[in-house]
């Protein structure tokens, strides 16, 4: 599903250049839940942004379903991202002026659908994340856990093939964090979505199938998570 080949990302140039990613190669299978770990500044977010086509690599290539995404134009990439990639952020990043329902419907609206046709999909996605009663709430009327679940609904509303999450629990207490993680895992399984999630939290990592560790922009370790340590439903 995902094939990353010799990915490099350099910020700036000259002596002050920062090599955020150095020759990272990695594969993720369809339906797999990959957890990216590593210390702060190791390049996790950079890798996720490249994966989502939010910025371009310095060198190397990313294939999604054998499609080289770095070759796409900005517009092509945007539309591809809209339809095939969902993104969940640490700080929820909901649009404050829109209701929960409208936030979830946003990718559909941007794709040219009318609110009429988008609404049922948004509502059903919100029901799946357990927020069927919060449809018309504004982000500032939601708790952190609720806000993050709205963000997940938004990421999944197009039923994408890839879900990218950058420290989705970083801003939540452990109870809310666990709730969010199980929502991600359950829905991912339900929809057969491939998940790549960055986190610091070893307990969050237990929700994944496999762990990749980054240090100073290099992939230092890959491994599956022992079954006995896997979080149970």
């Amino acid at each position, binding site marked *: 599903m995902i094939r990353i080949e010799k990915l490099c990302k350099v910020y700036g140039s000259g002596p002050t250049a920062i090599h955020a990613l150095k020759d990272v190669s990695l594969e993720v299978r369809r339906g797999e839940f990959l957890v990216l770990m590593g210390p702060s500044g190791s390049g996790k*977010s*950079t890798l996720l*942004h490249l994966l*989502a086509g*939010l*910025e371009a690599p310095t060198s190397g290539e990313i294939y999604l379903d054998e499609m080289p995404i770095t070759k796409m134009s*900005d*517009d092509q990439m*945007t*539309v591809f*991202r*809209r*339809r095939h990639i969902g*993104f969940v*952020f640490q*700080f*929820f*990043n*909901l*649009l*404050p*002026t*829109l209701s929960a329902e409208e936030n979830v419907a*946003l*990718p559909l*609206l*941007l*794709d*040219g*659908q*009318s*609110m*009429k046709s988008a609404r049922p999909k948004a509502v059903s996605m919100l029901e799946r994340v357990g927020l069927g009663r919060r449809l018309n709430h*504004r*982000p*500032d009327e939601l708790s952190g856990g609720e806000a993050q679940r709205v963000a997940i609904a*938004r*990421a999944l509303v197009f039923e994408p093939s890839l879900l990218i999450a950058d420290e989705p629990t970083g801003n939540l207490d452990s109870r809310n964090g666990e709730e969010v993680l199980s929502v991600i895992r359950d829905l991912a399984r339900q929809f057969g979505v491939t998940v790549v999630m960055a986190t610091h939290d070893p307990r969050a990592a237990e929700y994944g199938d496999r762990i990749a560790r980054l240090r100073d922009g290099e992939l230092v370790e890959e491994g599956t998570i022992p079954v006995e340590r896997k979080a149970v439903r």
Partner: protein
Amino acid sequence: MKLLELLRRLSVPYIARHRLRTAVTLFGVALGVAAMTALRLAYEPISRSYQIAVKRLAGRSSIQISNGEIGVPEELLDEVRRVPGVDVAAASVRGYVRLPNHPGERLYVLGVDMLDDQQVRDYGDEGVAKMSAPPAAPAEKPAAGSPAASAAGAQGAPASGSGKLLEVEDPLVFLAKADSVALSPEFLRENHLEVGDTIEVQGSSGRATLRIRGTLDSRRGVGSLFGGRLALMDIFAAEKLFHLDHRFSQIDVVVKPRADIERVAEAIAQVAKGRGVVQAQEASFQAAKALLEIEESNTTFEAFGAMVVGLYLIFNTMLIAVSQRRREIGILRSLGMRRWGVVKLILVEAGALGALGCAVGVAFGIGLARVMSLPFVFRLAETRIPVAPAKIVVDVGTLVLAAATGIVGALVAAAIPAYEASKVHPLEALRPYARPGELTQTADQGERYWTAAATGLALAVGSFVLWLEGRRLIGEYRAALVAMAGFLVGISLMVPLMVRAFARLAEPVLRRSGIALAALANRALLSHMGRTAITTTVFVMCFSFVTEVGAAYATLSKTFDRWFNALFADTDLIVSAGAATLHPTTTGLPDELAEQIAGLAGVSGASALRLAKVNFNGYLVDLVAMDARAQNLDLVDGDRAVVASELSSGKGVAIDERLAYNFGLHAGQVLMLASPRGTVSAPIVAVVHHSENFRDMGAVVLDRRVYRSVWGDRTVDLIEVRLKPGADAGSVMKEIRTRWGDKYELFITTVGRFKQQTRREVERDLAEVPPILAIALAIAVMAVVSSLLAAVLDRIRELAVMRAVGATRRQITALIVLEALIIGLGGAFLAAGIGVAFGYYQFAILSRSLNGVALVYSQPLRVIVLASAAALMLPALAAYLPARQVARLEVSAALASE
């Protein structure tokens, strides 16, 4: 000192990072301050130099006896001399002449009796310098009956014909010849003339040839006036030149030492019995002061507008700065800074911007003052008041005022942003991605709009009622100004509520429209209603100005038509003397010419019109004497035929609206007018409409036969020619030109042409409108752009999120442009409505109170449509560039940044 430290560490780097915005803000403040400075600097020296000019022309005299262009009878001079307390009395004749051989030049003639006059006026160190008796002297013919000439002759005119340069102390030779003229060296040099040459001049009685026999000291004294365009000549020769039939323009009186000026003036007035208007010198400043005040109030309005722009820019900049730095402010608050500390920080920043803008503005204003004073000098010259361009002196008062307006204005403008900043909750630092204002939102948001609108309505209605009921108490003009200001302020307070209502109405419509982006754009506007409302208000007020100006143009033009069409109802040709008909510098014509023209083949009739300035209540007003024809009377009310017969039988006079307004007159009252035959009491039988010109003080309209017998003036300013049916205008014009064209330097034109040309004068008066309009539109667009910029900066993160969930660049651009379009749409509607209302209010309801004239209100639909189209499109066009910039933003950086 803590504050200073904060400024250095927080404010300075911030300002440095936003150089462009800072520069624009500084420019705005500088513009306002410059306008204020220029206004003060330009007018003060003009009125000062006017006073100097008047003093110099008056010399040692302290009382004047005059009556506008009519003048005073000659015999009054001796009578005045016998009044106790009078030391010296000297007469003079004054007026402009044109020079047929030097096109474009004109001279202010001062005709005096040199013997008398040197006791009154200062002619510089050398007096009349370098007089020469030219070789041609014997051929010269002294003006018959000139006492000066005969007196000089009696003394033998010792140096006459000697061919040598004469000493200045002896003016007798100069005066012995009635055609002598003394001119400034500058004038001679520029026109390649020398002492001894002759020069042709054109006065109202036709041409005269003068011989240059002296030069004036142009460094000081009388010779220094008029920028070297002064001609000193014999008083009786000048009398003839201006067709003054045994009248002087003016008598200047020097009172005896220790005599009471007021008392002497009273005694002279008793002797004069209305044959001239007696004024102590101070009073003669009034006419010019009135003009100055009109000019100044016009310009004050413009300067005030410029200041408002500057303050708006500060307001906007500070608002953006606060919204961009909420987090920083939150951190400061959470670290223990008190609300007042935040307020102080913002105010000091704004004050510093204001101060810096002031410094630039003052420098700019001094330059502007120089430019501004030029056209103004020209206008004064047109009214025949001698003023040379004054030197601009920068006084401390002006500097203090400029600094105060700039800085205080900046602080006032920053008040709301500072208040916003003080409301930033400490938690905003800790929850960086909370919705702005989320932590502090209060329930009274909606109430504010209603409160503002209610206040606005009360202001508009209250000021209207004040005008309606209270104008007797506080004066028409002031009441109308209050009503206008009340309307503008009131409406602008009501606009926010209307904007909010508009956006709220649009909300469901847009949501259902299926254009998701438009709904999103409207939502963004609604969620920052405060900013949207202020922006749209500025936008609406600026654009409503466009519609109002359209009404102004159309109304003045229609009013002009009414006046012109009535005055020249059945006229085919207009004959006058000089460069252009009715121009203030035209010279008059003798009235026999009208009769002679009437006798031409193809002409069915010719009537003459005299327009003379006379003194009235200390001001110069127009005396309009016309050959009575009922159709020329454009009555405000009353019966034309009746009024016409009353005028022609000499029963009374008509006055125009301006005179009625300026002096509180109405039909039935009796006017007291000075004339060479003494005071004339003239009952007012009617009030006639006025032209669109609001600069003059008003006019008295009377029958020309009455005028001629009472004022003894046969001069006319223009002759209206009526053609026989089927007669060819061209050949009649040609006939008139060949017979009298040269003699009087005639200017002959068809009434249609004349109308066009006069209309051009009207338009010249409106010439300052388009630049103001351009500024207003620029402000409107700037308001929208800077507000959108603020909106965009506020939402960088939101926009990045939109990009991350799949919005293309084009969609982001479209979103911002749509926001502008919605502002433009709402703005266009409101601006059209408010503009029409304001135009109607000003020109149809308040105009009588504002300027005394009932205008012919007209509102061109074309302007409304054009203004609305522009209001709709301009913001969207202007928003396109910033919108594209935003669309290019680095998504991942924006997401990562705090």
